[in-house]
């Protein structure tokens, strides 16, 4: 196989764009210690604005680009002040969830901006007479500008990190109280850091439009995310230049895979594998370093709702609701019954996320692809006997999540979230390429709805009970403080794996319930992006509550029915942001507060 030099050149250009996104992830992690999933959005909205100014308002690219960079900086400041600064006392994982909500808002803005002002696609080229032929590609002015602008931006980013304000921002991220005691203006340095992050993202976003083309889809897609995430993971979210170098190498490899490997998804699989391996193969830090890595101005342990002694009341109430729902289902038409069954399957998926959070302290961004793989296994075993399908699906889900848990054993922090995001792309691809044979599992929609609803209610009730038992307390103890739990004779690693296994088992059942609901899932039905929907449902309902997952699912499914595509994304983003900013405990906590107030 001959490696064509033009492909390498194109790979370097695309790798450089990814390098800027990866550097932004590293910078945000060093100053705020979380994975900023809204980073690409901070760049793509300015890209769309420059397109609108050039294509519709007739501006020169050289005049519009600074405006776009300024918008990126302003968006960064607005995001920091309006979202991240308000989450000063929240766990870092909640910050990541907040950034996900923000990413959805930015995606909606990127789509809406060109439509709102004329509907002309905001594409543009760089007005500079440059053309370099390197077989089989032609490098244009945009490519050359990328080769010049990206290294300059990277040097500026590195200089910022070493500057007084950059050091101050890192100090605030690591220990806000101490930094403020020494006179560092926390708000100013954090906002400045995010202005720099936003400006760097804007440079990448503005250059990406003429190099990669403009997408009206809004969200940047898994491949774009992984192109930045994988190198940032290779650099441990710490070393800016290593992240940039890794991004360029991966850009070239990705380009070669695209050219010689046939499907684009092969490149995505490769990037996912690199990101997962980068986290998994990084040697576990020593005790002090591990503690240092976990230390930040934001607590690492996510909150969960305390178990109450009134379980019987709530379970009785839940089964009352189920009984009423069951009666209602018998009166529904087939399509509505299918909607209920699908909703119940999604509720199980959200429950799986809540279990991972509550019992293992990990945020899984892979729930739906795991459900897909488990559904494949379940459906396959169902041919031998229907009764075999649920245990096989549950076991498959449990094995996959436990295997991922083992990969990042003793790494803590955001390692599991990063690995699950990366592995999710691969599993989703496996699910997409496999046809699910549900011949033995076909039942009437109303029966499927009843079964799925019954399973969802039973599983939620069972885990609520488990949470209050001695076994549940041990899991929560290991999740909250592994060192102290170990001193009390609890093995934290095993407890965490058990929590992940339970989460995976429920995800497997969710996948099977989904197959029951829709009979023949379309290719891509178990895509990685669905996991983000499930996350939104769990967050809106209240991540720390099992019943909250069901409530959140019901709310967002209803919103999806009432709103159409673009509005649904916007609603989901607003819902997630509103939940983390104003209702940190979600619907579950709001309901608990209302009940408490009523009792008083």
């Amino acid at each position, binding site marked *: 196989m001959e490696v064509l030099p033009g492909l390498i050149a194109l790979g370097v250009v695309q790798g450089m764009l990814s390098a800027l996104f990866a550097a932004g992830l590293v910078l945000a992690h*060093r100053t705020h210690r979380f994975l900023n999933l809204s980073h690409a959005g901070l760049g793509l909205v300015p890209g769309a604005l420059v397109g609108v100014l050039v294509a519709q308002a007739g501006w020169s690219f050289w005049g519009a680009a600074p405006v776009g960079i300024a918008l990126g900086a302003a968006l960064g*400041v*607005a995001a920091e*002040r*309006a979202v991240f600064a308000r989450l000063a006392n929240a766990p870092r994982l909640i910050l990541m969830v907040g950034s996900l909500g923000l990413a959805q808002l930015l995606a909606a803005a990127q789509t809406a901006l060109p439509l709102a002002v004329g509907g002309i696609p905001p594409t543009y080229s760089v007005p500079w007479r440059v053309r370099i032929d390197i077989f089989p590609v032609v490098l244009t002015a945009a490519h050359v500008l990328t080769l010049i602008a990206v290294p300059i931006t990277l040097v500026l980013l590195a200089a910022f990190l070493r500057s*007084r304000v950059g*050091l*101050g921002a*890192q*100090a605030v991220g*690591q*220990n806000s*109280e*101490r*930094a*403020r*005691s*020494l*006179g*560092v*203006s*926390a*708000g100013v340095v954090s906002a400045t850091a995010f202005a720099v992050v936003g400006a760097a993202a804007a440079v990448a976003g503005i250059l990406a439009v003429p190099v990669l083309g403009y997408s009206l889809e809004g969200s940047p897609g898994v491949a774009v995310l992984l192109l930045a995430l994988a190198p940032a993971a290779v650099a441990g979210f*710490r070393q800016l230049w290593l992240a940039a170098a890794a991004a360029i190498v991966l850009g070239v490899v990705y380009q070669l895979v695209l050219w010689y490997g046939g499907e684009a998804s092969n490149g995505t699989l490769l990037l996912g594998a690199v990101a997962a391996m980068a986290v998994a193969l990084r040697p576990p830090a*020593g005790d*002090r*370093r591990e*503690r*240092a*890595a976990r*230390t930040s101005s934001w607590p690492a342990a996510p909150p969960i709702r305390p178990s109450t002694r009134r379980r019987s009341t709530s379970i009785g109430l839940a089964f009352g609701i189920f009984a009423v729902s069951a009666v209602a289902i018998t009166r529904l038409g087939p399509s509505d019954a299918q909607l209920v069954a699908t909703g119940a399957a999604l509720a199980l998926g959200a429950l799986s996320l809540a279990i991972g959070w509550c019992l293992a302290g990990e945020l899984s961004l892979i729930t739906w692809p795991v459900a897909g793989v488990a559904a494949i296994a379940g459906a396959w075993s169902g041919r031998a006997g229907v009764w075999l399908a649920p245990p096989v699906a549950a076991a498959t889900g449990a094995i996959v999540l436990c295997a991922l848990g083992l990969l990042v054993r003793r790494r803590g922090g955001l390692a599991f979230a990063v690995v699950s995001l990366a592995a999710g792309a691969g599993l989703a691809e496996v699910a997409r390429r496999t046809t699910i044979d549900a011949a033995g599992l076909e039942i009437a929609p109303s029966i499927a709805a009843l079964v799925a609803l019954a399973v969802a209610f039973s599983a939620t009730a069972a885990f609520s009970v488990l949470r209050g038992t001695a076994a549940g307390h041990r899991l929560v103890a290991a999740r909250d403080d592994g060192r102290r739990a170990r001193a009390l004779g609890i093995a934290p690693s095993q407890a965490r794996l058990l929590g992940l296994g339970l989460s995976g088992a429920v995800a497997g059942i969710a996948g099977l319930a989904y197959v029951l609901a829709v009979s023949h899932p379309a290719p891509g039905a178990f895509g990685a992006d669905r996991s983000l929907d499930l996350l939104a449902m769990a967050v809106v309902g209240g991540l720390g509550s099992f019943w909250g997952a069901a409530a959140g699912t019901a709310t967002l499914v209803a919103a999806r029915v009432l709103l159409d595509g673009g509005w649904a994304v916007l609603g989901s983003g607003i819902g997630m942001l*509103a939940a983390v900013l*104003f*209702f940190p405990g979600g619907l579950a906590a709001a309901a608990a507060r209302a009940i408490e*107030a009523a009792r008083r």
Partner: protein
Amino acid sequence: MSRETRMALARPHVRRGLWWSWLGGGLVYSALVEAPRAIDRAVGLSGPAVPAALGWLALGAGLIAYRLAARPRAGVLAALGPLAVGGIAPTPVVVATALCLCGLAGGWVVGAVCREAQRPAAAGPAGAGLSLVAAAGGFLLIPLSSLWLAALATVILSSASSRAHTQTAPAPAIADPDGIGVDAVLQGTAVSISFAARRVLDQISITLRPGELVALVGGNGSGKSTLLRVLSGHLLPDDGALSLRGENVLGSSPEDLARLGVTLASGARPVFPDLTVRENLQIATWITPSSRRERVGSVEAALARFPELTSLDRAAAGTLSGGEQRLLALAASLIGRPHVLLADEVTLGLSPQARRRALHTLRGVADSGAAVLVVEHELRDLLPLADRALVLQGGKLVETAEPLPAKASFIPEVER
């Protein structure tokens, strides 16, 4: 701006209430004027039902958030807003009514907070006026078509409201029967703070004078660290006054107090773990108005003062032992030459020699003219160096004896 207004603005709940009042005003505008127009343009749907429904939805959402962010009971009153708007056409009377409701609700919040904190009743009307102005501002500035302007105004408004309370003003007259505070550099009077139902500090009055080292002792949970966090601006007390050289600094942020010379060195989470020792010290030069060369000189001087740190200057601070981290925190706190140093268990985990040297360093800081307040559990080395010792028990300052609290029952015999 009157003192009552400043005191009201110093409360985070009040600032949030104002913000929501402003947003509520904007939502009224959006609900009544812009949104119906936009819907009419988009789908051709118009009529009295649209503003009514949107009025309910928008104001309801805004005020539910208001309720959660501010004070629970305020939501009940604020919820009357949608009642006034729903089903009625957007006339000036309806708009004015809704705005007044926003203002009244904000004022009610301010009044409730002031009552709880036993502030003068005048703060209530002041807050109501502020809230009304905020709501009107929101009404004028947040039209749906200019959300960017709304975002800008939000940033300006929130930063202005958070800055307003940091402005210093002449301190109120403080009772000082002992005459101890005449030359005070930092003075807290009748400071009280509660967490949930627990009163952690109860009417504490404390005075620090230049050139003295004061030992603050007390059992676990007596409120020592909380008092230091109040004095350094990290916690806003429920009640009381705080003055620095006669200026009222109640409600000032920790960074503002640090710039005025008040530094807290805490033994708990004392460093920035991912930065090197040298970078930790560089951060401490943040408030020194000097050239780059002078700042580097300050870092070198700090390293020379604590030779244990010299060989570790390139190591990540998180990899140091607990004792080394506290030494680093102490070294960093001294770089800014504070006028008031609040040291919270900075010698925990140090070897006996290092502890004695650290305490003598603190004594030296006091001798150079600063006021030093030290919280320690190991009293044997501290008390001989202290000018005074204060004893906290159950959130109350039970002794202010000079120099040794011999009657403090919780101090072991061997420590006295």
